[in-house]
């Protein structure tokens, strides 16, 4: 258990145009932007698209360091991608380290592909940086809403997500309490090889699961006592409404994306 439990996810609280933007518009723009990245076939255009990152960070009022942090789990793959291209692309010889030959084309490809990877990750992170998981859930329910016609349980899935997000902190502190209680009885959760450690988790897992299922039962009872009876006709406290600003963002965003994609055929 570490500090991540306190601030779940990437969300950076601030009051900005991106934070107040309709989460559905954000999701759609992000998907369009990320798809557009795969249409770019030119290093210069890729670099130009990269300039959007500081622009978006400024608009979102998220510190640059916070944005860059999203790349951290990917650092190893980014560096690997770069060097594999540098050394394994055939072309004019640039320099040699032992049996490895770096080429000019390799350097270009390395920059191009690691930039592509980095930009996809950074652009997609702007959604999770500026949207709470609960807002994201509402957006997913709304976007997939038409699938209800095909008898897919869209509303139920969204409600399950909301319940899960609500109970993660509760169950996390419960797990910590049980761990402390078992440690006081002499349990050891930290030593031994992987299978021994897994086995030592049994005294944690059984009380945790049993109390979690008891909680689920109480929750269901409470929901019915309050008259919950499925998605049909249910009302909400926060209703997603498209505002003029959302439309402006959507049109402006799609125009930029069309430009990025269009360059491929224009040049």
């Amino acid at each position, binding site marked *: 258990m570490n500090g991540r439990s306190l601030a779940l996810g990437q969300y950076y609280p601030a009051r900005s145009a991106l934070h107040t933007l309709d989460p559905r518009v954000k999701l759609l723009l992000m998907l369009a932007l990320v798809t557009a990245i795969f249409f770019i076939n030119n290093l210069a255009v890729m670099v130009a698209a990269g300039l959007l990152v500081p622009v978006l960070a400024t608009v979102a009022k998220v510190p640059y360091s916070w944005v860059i942090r999203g790349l951290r789990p990917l650092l190893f793959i980014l560096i690997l991608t770069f060097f594999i291209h540098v050394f394994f692309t055939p072309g004019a010889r640039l320099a040699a380290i032992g049996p490895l030959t770096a080429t000019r084309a390799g350097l270009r490809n390395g920059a191009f592909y690691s930039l592509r990877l980095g930009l996809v990750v950074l652009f997609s992170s702007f959604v999770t940086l500026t949207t709470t998981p609960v807002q994201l859930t509402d957006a997913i329910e709304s976007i997939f809403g038409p699938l209800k016609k095909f008898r897919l349980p869209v509303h139920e899935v969204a409600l*399950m997500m909301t319940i*899960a997000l609500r109970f993660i902190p509760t169950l996390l502190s419960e797990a910590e309490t049980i761990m402390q209680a078992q440690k006081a009885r002499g349990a050891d959760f930290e030593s031994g090889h992987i299978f021994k450690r897994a086995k030592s988790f049994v005294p944690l897992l059984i009380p945790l699961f049993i109390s979690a299922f008891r909680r689920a039962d109480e929750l269901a009872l409470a929901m019915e006592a309050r008259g919950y009876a499925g998605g049909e006709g249910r009302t909400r406290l926060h209703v997603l409404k498209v505002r003029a600003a959302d439309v402006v963002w959507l049109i402006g965003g799609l125009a930029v994306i069309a430009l990025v994609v269009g360059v491929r055929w224009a040049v």
Partner: protein
Amino acid sequence: MKEGDAGTMASGKSSIDVRAIAEVGICVALAAVLNLVPLFKLPQGGSVSLDMLPIFFLAFYRGPRLAILAGVVYGFVDYAIDPFFVHPAQLILDYPLAFGLVGLAGFVRPTSLIKVAVGTILGGLARFTAHFFSGVIFFASYAPKGQSPWLYSAVYNGSYMLASTLICIPLVYALLQAFKQVEGGSPSRP
């Protein structure tokens, strides 16, 4: 945890009753909590955690339908908490689809330890397949032409998936036994 305490009153058109919604939601929360406690970190990224355990448990306890649903929901929640996005197809394969497939374990009835092992391996294998193809797409989009993405994806995804799946077999069996004791009967299936 007695049978039919809640959920039986729901008479909506939806075939998922209130208790099922609550159980899936709580199981997904359990998965997210267990994911925060990594058992073992692999050098090349990827970690072995018990996040599949609640989905396996639900698969054997309530059947494959709810477990697949729980897997899909956990996929979305996992993405909302800790996103890793490098390609639109990878997003679907690595999150909702991969964890949804874990629920397939429930098609095997958990009547013995062997059956539990078979079901668990089935679910793990199905999830591996999704990550495997996602890895192939990833390497095909970012690696130089001529490098084989198939082998690397199999090795990378196989390493942590094998450990994560095998660990769940005794644990999910222990949980099923414990729930049997608490309820004083065999696990109920809808």
